[in-house]
């Protein structure tokens, strides 16, 4: 199903024409309205007139998260607050939050983008959507909220937390669509089942998961546990929020809204541009945003692009599920490790829960990785051999996938923390003083 079929299935050539026209426009708009860009682009000698083709985008300097922070709070806004109707901010895990503003047009375009990805998995105006993202400065909840409302769904803005009540409402209100982080969906299904609610009593059919990475293996487990079909969507507040890209029912990559966002892939170390199909850091230029336009914003997310039309008929570029943020990558004994690699290993092992925790320590200048997993299969208690075999299996699989040895610790069920939003599965103790 499509929300804006004409736009979503434009021929490639037509998309590029629109993008070129809008790129010229947004460069000019930035120079005229944002002193920061006027200075940056002036130094680089870039003007709208100099952009003759899409590849000329390479002359535009990159914008980083630190640029937004350095201009805290409103320095990068291209419109006076009079024209800004909404302000969001990203969690300031490192220092001040990054603040973004939306005009009426921005909110309208944003909800279009979200409506597209919701309808791409089959959400209709008949659906009842429970939004279990935390409402607030975070863009996830309101982003999905406006998109789903635009389609005509009955939206339940329950926000996150109070999981037993979430499960009760899921059942009593007959919610058919669940919006949450994958970790929270997993936790919610666990709680619902503990309360004696079976999947048959639920009306759930679609999960719109986002705001954190999730491997296919873990997704399959969540779907089986909750009896639903889920898609992944992608976005960040700096660019707009969720809706930058999203999966369709075939789940073969996330479709960009390319009429609003121009994606590129670069080598995150050298800054060189990479071609179609090559992995690298995703860089996005917003083509229509008025409140806080972004020119070549470095997302730190690692993925690759394809421009082939999808089976679903959509023609806009697709990106792979984000395999990891360049920020999330762990260097353990000199080896690059993405937590998602560990997650896919663990999700394939029987007898343990999908919850896990990674603990990194350093002793005598050597890094140690400990993976904590919850035992769920009581049958293994028959003898030590079986428990030990489970642990050894996990150790061997990790060694194969990561190339380094990890210690695997079996812990009691429910002893690993559950999350109502983004899960924090990594405890890095390496920079603490050694005792």
């Amino acid at each position, binding site marked *: 199903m499509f929300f804006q079929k004409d736009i979503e299935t434009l021929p490639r050539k037509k998309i590029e024409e629109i993008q070129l026209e809008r790129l010229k426009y947004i460069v000019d708009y930035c120079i005229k309205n944002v002193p920061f860009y006027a200075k940056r682009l002036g130094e680089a000698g870039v003007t709208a007139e100099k952009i003759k083709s899409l590849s000329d985008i390479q002359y535009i300097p990159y914008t980083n998260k630190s640029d937004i922070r350095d201009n805290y709070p409103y320095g990068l806004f291209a419109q006076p607050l009079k024209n800004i109707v909404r302000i969001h901010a990203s969690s300031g895990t490192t220092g001040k939050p990054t603040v973004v503003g939306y005009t009426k047009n921005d909110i309208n375009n944003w909800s279009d983008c979200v409506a597209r990805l919701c309808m791409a998995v089959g959400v209709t105006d008949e659906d009842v959507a429970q939004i279990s993202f935390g409402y607030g400065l975070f863009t996830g909840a309101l982003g999905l909220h406006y998109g789903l409302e635009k389609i005509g769904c009955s939206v339940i803005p329950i926000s996150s937390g109070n999981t037993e009540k979430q499960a009760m409402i899921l059942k009593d209100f007959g919610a058919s669509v669940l919006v949450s982080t994958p970790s929270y969906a997993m936790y919610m299904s666990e709680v619902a089942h503990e309360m004696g609610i079976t999947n048959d009593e639920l009306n759930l059919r679609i999960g719109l998961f986002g705001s954190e990475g999730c491997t296919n293996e873990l997704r399959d487990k969540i779907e089986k546990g909750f009896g639903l079909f889920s898609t992944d969507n992608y976005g960040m507040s700096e660019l707009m929020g969720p809706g930058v890209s999203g999966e369709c029912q075939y789940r073969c990559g996330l479709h960009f809204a390319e009429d609003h966002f121009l994606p590129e892939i670069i080598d995150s170390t050298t800054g060189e541009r990479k071609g179609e199909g090559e992995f690298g850091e995703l860089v996005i230029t917003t083509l229509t945003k008025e409140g806080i336009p972004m020119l070549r914003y470095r997302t730190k997310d690692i993925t690759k692009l394809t421009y082939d039309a999808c089976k679903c008929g959509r023609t806009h570029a697709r990106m792979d599920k984000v395999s990891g943020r360049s920020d999330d990558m762990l260097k353990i004994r000199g080896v690059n490790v993405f937590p998602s690699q560990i997650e896919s290993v663990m999700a394939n092992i029987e007898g343990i829960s999908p919850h896990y925790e990674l603990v990194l320590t350093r002793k005598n200048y050597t890094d140690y990785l400990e993976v904590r997993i919850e*035992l*769920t*299969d*009581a*049958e293994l*208690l*028959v*003898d*030590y051999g079986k*428990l*030990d075999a489970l642990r050894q299996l996990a150790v061997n699989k990790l060694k194969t996938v990561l190339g380094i040895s990890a210690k695997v*610790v*079996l*812990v*009691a*069920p*429910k*002893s690993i923390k559950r999350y109502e939003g983004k899960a924090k599965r990594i405890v890095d103790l390496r920079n603490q003083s050694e005792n």
Partner: protein
Amino acid sequence: MAIKQLSIFVENKKGSLVEIYETLSHAQVDIRAMSIADTQDFGILRLIVSDAEKAAEALKQAHCIVSVTDVIGVAINDQAGSLAKVVRLLTDNDVNIEYMYAFITVSKQYAYVVFRVADNDAATALLETNGVKLVTEDDIRNL
């Protein structure tokens, strides 16, 4: 004529055992026999209790991993050599003992022992034919 044994996963950290014993205490379950062995990170606690079903239910509610398995309980005369005789009998008949432990409960006449073997039925038949007194679920409830 097997009896029910609980096997409980115990994480090697402060408070794990207390939680288990307090859960059993609240459920008003008496412990008859007990064995625990540990590796560096975890242990398996094995218990014979007055009411295995009730205990398992209470422990599951408390988020413990519990399995209930059949084991053989034997009552032997509380005098030197009795245990050796039973173990000799099992050995001579190729019944392999995976693990065993003794009851905490004291009686004037008998000592009680738990055996875990691969084939409960065969071992039970063997012991019965040779006049060894076996412990039943009823015995355990009333001990």
